[in-house]
């Protein structure tokens, strides 16, 4: 079971978009950047999905500073493919930022790719 935390401006929307899909193997909860950074460091959560207008700043917040750039990736306003996401996850990325107006495409894509890894 992979635990995903959401944060940023669209944190509730991301959680709703993923919960409605009924994907097995993941658990998603609304959080915020500071609590999520502590949870990810302590191993109490596995992934963070952050959102804001640009897909970079508020969405990643303090996580880049605390976990390091190596753990973080922002899609900005771009829409990744399933292969992109799988490669990034394999690369060890745990924190992802994307733009508010991309939630409906990026959030389910991320959730499915994380679930596929968790199995």
């Amino acid at each position: 079971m992979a635990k995903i935390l959401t944060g940023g401006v669209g944190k509730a929307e991301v959680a709703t978009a993923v919960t409605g899909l009924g994907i097995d193997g993941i658990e998603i909860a609304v959080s915020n950047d500071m609590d999520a950074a502590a949870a990810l460091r302590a191993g109490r959560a596995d992934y963070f999905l952050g959102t804001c207008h640009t897909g970079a700043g508020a969405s990643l917040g303090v996580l880049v500073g605390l976990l390091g750039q190596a753990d973080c990736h922002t899609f900005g306003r771009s829409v990744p493919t399933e292969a992109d996401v799988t490669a990034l996850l394999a690369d060890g990325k745990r924190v992802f930022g994307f733009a508010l107006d991309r939630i409906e495409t990026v959030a389910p894509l991320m959730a499915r790719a994380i679930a596929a890894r968790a199995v």
Partner: protein
Amino acid sequence: MGTALAAADAALAFSPAQQLLVVGVCALTATVAHLALAVFNDGVRPFMLDFIHGRTTRNATGAVSFGLSAGFVFGLGAPMALSTGVLNPWLLFLPTDVLGILAPRAWLAPLLGAAWGAVVVFGLGGANELAHGLPVDFLTAMRQMSTPILFLFALFPALAVTKQFGRLRGGLTGAVELGLVVLTMRVWPGVFAGAPAMAAGVLMLIGFAVAADVRAVRTPPAPAPPGSEGAEDPMASLFSAGAARLRRHLPLFMALGAGVCVLAQMKVFGGGEATSFLIAKGHYTEAAQVDFYRVFGFLPLIATTALASGAYGIAGFTLVYPIGYLLPNPLVAAAVGALVFALEVLALSSVGRALGRLPSVRDCSEHLRAAIGDALGLAILFGSLMAANAMGGGLGILICGGLYLLNEAMGRPVVRMAAAPAAVLVGGVALNGLYWLGLFAPVTGGPA
């Protein structure tokens, strides 16, 4: 006319002192960005940490900054400045972020910043004059946007309360706000109707959030998982390193605070989304109120990203905007602005620590920003269609609304928030083209 607040007849005319000030402030902000001490774009700040530590290049960071800012400069900053005649931080400070970071030499940063300031004060005025001279005057039409923006913006606290604390309290806040808007219009017709409502809404949101945090403290805390004490440490050490870096450059920040505060005092600049329209109308007290409530949506974000990255905000907590609007003269504004920035930078670590203990307050700033986005999204779309109608009637609506829908259908190459104003600008040019081809007659006797 009580509810239709069309912006004043703005000409983007600057006095020599104002031109000099804008050029000087842009030179300063570009220098500060070059030194990685402050950037305006909250999205760029997290990336400054790696840049400060030399783990990434100037060009790579500049590319990030450009990518995150360009849409907001052309979609938000420029159309707002053109339609109100008042400058705004997106138009001035996002480009100086990019130019300052990209400048390969320290001496080049202030020159590039000053050049941008000059382009804005001289170029924008010319573009404005040129556009007003066209047969289809789309800039005058764009003032239609002010009414929906001003009035829908007033409702953002109610949306934030609903998102954070549910329908009951959200409905209550909405009812209080609506009541206050109606009351203000009846009893104090000279006051911008949204201001008292916004004050009440933001106070209610903060009240609910503080109450939730106090309740959470009173209930016995969940047993701390082993190792959580250690997990708290890295945050504290990261934050203290950031705060120490910023404190070392206090004099430069005081100069920055002075510059931004004088800019606000000179009445040629509006800090928030709704403020430019109010400044253009000369409603400075109301503009100060609107920008003051907006501070609550951004303060936690700016504080935490500044502490984590060691790079502050160009406008700090943006408190210098409302203070600047209210001050009597530029000299006082310079002194007060410097003092405010000094206090902000010195208080930054305590603010960070306090925010760490107040999760609901931190959440409420995220909900406030989401609510501002939602309210503005509708207001800008609706206002853009009103502008399209004013300049081209049904054909204008067809072209501008059509461009907006096309952008949506193509997967939003243009940010949704900027798509409608951009469509109005493109539509305005298209209608002028049709006029020259003899295929379109301008809407006569447009709204005065």
